[in-house]
């Protein structure tokens, strides 16, 4: 019987992060789509030579063609260019919403889950209240309170996501706090705060990451809905939801709705696929 155990046993993960990752085709495609969308938002000028604001009136309401991929609108503007230039605002506001949700919700969940006691009770009721108000109504009154702008729509969306992050983080923290390895860390002489930061937080956040990615997709939808109702930046801004909202008055030229809708759906679908994959590979 050898004392040195077999080194070859199930040698996963030894070759760094990527060795253990098998990326399915749909996930690779989703990552590509998200990469393109991010590129649109950073460098829109690289992807189209048309102006998103100034149109050619003679070319108004043209169908999709090689020249105008998504057709043109009632002012003769290239819809593809409008979508590409609208990306930055749609994507960055969704990011802001997620950051607000993760940071505020995560902090609430972390503190109430780790401290327990009356702190937990107080936060639990607060989270219950945020959950009780229908999310979209909550976003609407918050954006009403702070003003109709895309950035405010993002903040409102973030506020409406706080409760979910708080609840999930709290559940994860409690689950982790009761884990055997946390008790083992106490026996190893670790202090409460050391264990919170080095053991509980990294483990609890593992399931918050897929949720944050999922929330990113959802925030795109909520912000698009708010823009659709006219609670974001006014035209000539070209947020995806706003484009669809303008298009709905021109249903005879359906690409005005379908083109931005297609981009929105494809983006959110890709983001959701990535989230699902992250949840599984965890």
């Amino acid at each position, binding site marked *: 019987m050898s004392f040195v155990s077999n080194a070859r046993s199930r040698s996963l993960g030894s070759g760094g992060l990527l060795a253990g990752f098998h990326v399915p085709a749909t996930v690779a495609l989703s990552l590509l789509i998200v990469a393109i969308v991010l590129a649109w938002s950073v460098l829109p000028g690289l992807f189209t030579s048309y102006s998103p604001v100034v149109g050619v009136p003679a070319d108004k309401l043209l169908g999709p063609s090689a020249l105008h991929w998504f057709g043109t609108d009632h002012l003769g503007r290239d819809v593809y260019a409008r979508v590409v230039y609208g990306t930055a605002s749609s994507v960055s506001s969704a990011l802001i919403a997620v950051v607000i949700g993760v940071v505020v919700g995560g902090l609430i969940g972390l503190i109430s889950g780790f401290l327990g006691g009356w702190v937990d009770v107080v936060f639990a*009721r607060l989270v219950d209240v945020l*959950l009780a*108000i229908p999310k979209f*109504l909550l976003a*609407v009154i918050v954006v009403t309170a702070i003003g109709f702008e895309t950035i405010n729509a993002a903040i409102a969306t973030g506020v409406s996501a706080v409760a*979910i992050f708080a609840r999930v983080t709290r559940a994860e923290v409690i689950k982790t706090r009761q884990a055997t390895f946390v008790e083992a860390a106490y026996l190893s002489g670790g202090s409460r705060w050391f264990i919170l930061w080095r053991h509980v937080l990294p483990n609890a956040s593992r399931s918050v990451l897929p949720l944050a990615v999922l929330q990113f997709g*959802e925030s795109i*939808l909520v912000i698009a809905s708010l823009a659709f109702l006219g609670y974001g930046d006014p035209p000539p801004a070209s947020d995806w939801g706003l484009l669809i909202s303008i298009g*709905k008055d021109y249903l005879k030229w359906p690409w005005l709705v379908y083109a931005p*809708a297609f981009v929105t759906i494809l983006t959110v679908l890709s983001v959701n696929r990535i989230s699902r994959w992250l949840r599984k590979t965890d």
Partner: protein
Amino acid sequence: MSNAYLTYAAKRLGQAVVVILLAYIFTFVVVSILPGDPVTSVLRNPQNGFTEEEIAEIIAAQGLDKPIIVQLWNALSGFLTGDLGMSMRSNRPVSTLIAEVLPSTLILASAGLAVALVLAMLVAYGTRFVPKKYGQGLLRGFPSLFLSVPNFVIGLMLIHIFGFQLGLFRVINPDSFWATLFAAIALGIPVSAQIAEVLIANLDREAEQEYAAVARSRGIGQARLFATHLLKPASLPVVTVVALTIGELLGGSLITETVFGRTGIGSLVQRSVSTQDLPVLQAVVSLGAVVFVLVNLIADLLYPLLDPRVKIIGGRKRSPTTADETAIGATKAVTP
């Protein structure tokens, strides 16, 4: 009805009351931090054409000259006695305004819920019967696809295809049968995606349980396994999920009513937002919270009676299964 259950019920009821009160206070605070003075922006708006005397009268009637804490107290005690205050814009009782539009929204929301339930069950139960090579993947893809589609896009597509192209209904007549049906479909599809997602996950989990294999070792076929073994444990937790989707139905009807040009709570909110009619907004949002809390209270009280796995210990619900987890899973996957 055991003692433990009654303790649990009393505790949940108390929590529900506290949450409703806090939700009211919360919306009051959010609405009160509006930048600018609502009095100036609404009452002194020349479009509304109020005279100075009328303005003074409204301010006095609404108690807007009192300190904020007194206003909150007045509003809260009014809310508890069923008095929702007066609309600032039309100077009519808020309860009257809501009562006028509520039936239309109730019809839409319940039709939407019905669509959501039927569709979710068809899709989820279908995954058990449609073989892999005949499109089971399509059914399984349904939830993730429709969780990615904004519901106003679904509405616009339905209007475009069935209204414009096929001429089944006209948006000018939003209360017709077809218009209501398609509005309900637009509202119900994203909600059904959520329910179907949980249902499919539950069915898959139950089918992998040891008891399913043991039942099959007793010669039970797939169809009977589904009907007598998997259906109940997979579907029971959905009671909780459906209750959680009430919020989506309320929020979604706001957009759906706009898309289909219906009058209802949604259009009332829209109008109140644009005119900054605070008492109306405050009332609608807190009523939304009341409905949500009550529906979820009922679901929570019902669930231990339906599912023998759930035990009430020390006034808390203890579930040896993953019913609670699926409820969290449902809050994870939400559409506007």
